[in-house]
């Protein structure tokens, strides 16, 4: 049984169909990517999964349907979304942002241990823990957003464009962390425009185009696919 199973997911904004009935699955422990151009419907798909966007179709998580379940309860069940643009709370401090990540948890001792772990992953956050999050650089904000998601001890981590707008060195750092988190056993669905990176770190991938999934398979195969190479990896045929 897959940890996440999406079947026939459809999302529309007014008359515009952003997601046209897609199927995708993520097994426990996998790192799966969803790549595609800007506006293909990747972010909408993630928002649909966590219930932030009204949708039709079925989303099953850990065997149970999420139909009608409010976002805060989906989050409490172990699904953490790091939204596009990071979604940090700009007027809370770094430490307060991280505390918000652990909002639903009652195991205070374990929360403190996880906080140490996050500060260990991102020493920069430790240095800046009393600073207002809005004053952090883009890369630091991305670290904070990922760290905050980890504070919920997620079973399923949904990452929306973690490389967006970051300097290459920072992208590398963020991706190293994503791989480390995956190795620690967190299941990840990674949405990226940067197909090259996403296919390199993931084991399987889906290619999304104008609201539909057009290709899927092992990441190595996708990376070798001439169509993918032409459309997303910047190679001419």
């Amino acid at each position, binding site marked *: 049984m897959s940890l996440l199973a999406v079947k026939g997911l459809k999302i529309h904004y007014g008359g515009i169909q952003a997601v046209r009935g897609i199927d995708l699955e993520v097994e426990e422990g996998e790192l799966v990517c969803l790549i595609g151009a800007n506006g293909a419907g990747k972010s909408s798909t993630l928002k649909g999964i966590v219930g*932030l966007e009204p949708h039709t179709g079925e989303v099953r998580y850990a065997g149970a349907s999420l139909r009608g379940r409010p976002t*805060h*309860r989906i989050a*409490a069940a172990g699904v*953490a979304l790091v939204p596009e643009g990071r*979604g940090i*709370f700009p*007027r*809370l401090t770094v430490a*307060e942002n991280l505390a918000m990540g652990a909002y639903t948890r009652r195991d205070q001792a374990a929360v403190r241990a996880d906080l140490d772990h996050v500060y260990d992953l991102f020493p920069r956050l430790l240095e800046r823990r009393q600073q207002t999050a809005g004053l952090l650089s883009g890369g630091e904000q991305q670290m904070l957003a990922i760290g905050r998601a980890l504070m919920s001890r997620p079973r399923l981590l949904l990452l929306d464009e973690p490389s967006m707008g970051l300097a290459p060195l920072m992208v590398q750092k963020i991706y190293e962390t994503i791989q480390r988190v995956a190795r620690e056993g967190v299941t990840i669905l990674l949405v990226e425009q940067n197909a090259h990176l996403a296919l390199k770190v993931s084991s399987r991938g889906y290619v999304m185009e104008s609201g539909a999934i057009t290709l899927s398979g092992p990441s190595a195969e996708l990376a070798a696919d001439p169509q993918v190479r032409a459309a997303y990896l910047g190679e001419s045929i």
Partner: protein
Amino acid sequence: MDIFVQQLINGLVLGSIYALVALGYTMVYGILELINFAHGEVTMFGAMVALAVIGVVLGVAPDLPGLLVVLAGVLVAIPVCMLLGFSIERLAYRPLRNAPRLAPLITAIGLSIVLQNVAMLIWGRQYIAFPPLLPKGQYEVLGAHVSNLQIFIVVLSILVMLGLWFMVQKTRLGRAMRATAQSRAVAQLMGVNVNSVIAATFVIGSALAAVAGVMVSAYYGLAHYYMGFLLGLKAFSAAVLGGIGNIAGAMLGGLLLGVIEALGAGYIGDLTGGFLGSHYQDVFAFFVLILVLVFRPSGLLGERVATRA
């Protein structure tokens, strides 16, 4: 000099009451970007309920110490107002959560009128006197008079505001409130039940309003079904002056507005050669509101400029 100190003291007393009411406006605005115009009426209900309870207690046990009688009134008024605030949010605003912004605003104005009329039906149109229960006592400070009641109002307001500040800054609920105010969607992603946080905001604001309502009726010695209207508008002006949505701003704005009003009332006669008298006191709050909206729409401590009134 005497007048200055006296009016400064009077202004601080009035201002601390405005601040308590202004906090209710600003907390709700911070989270919902809604101006809850019914908030003034919640304050009025606080005064009315407390007076009703005081009347009953005096009838049953006329020999009880005055302070205890007033305390009984306050302790009933607070939960009643909390329930009222909760119901207002649940019944009037929540169904409109995703409606265009004008709908909840009009609803707020309508609700304010409904609550006034409910109060009129229950308690009548006449002014209700606040019985002289609190221990009298006056002190001389720099040539001005300060009463026990004035000291009591200022001290209690400060304590309530410190408590609120601690709640917002240090507790889990307070952090969730601030997070929800900054992004409702992301707060949900953290597992925050945004509806509960919004309800809690109304309930807390209403508790402050209840306290303020009893204070203002004790201070002026009377209560009236219409008293919430002007008080609400002034507190709203105070919240805008401090920067609506900003909690420290509401405290500062309330105190400042009280002082401006009292000093204005104290000196307007001299300044206009007796042409305008101190009954123009109420004009100052709105004069300040207009000035703030023209020159600094984000208020003294506000960060963002409001895009819509």
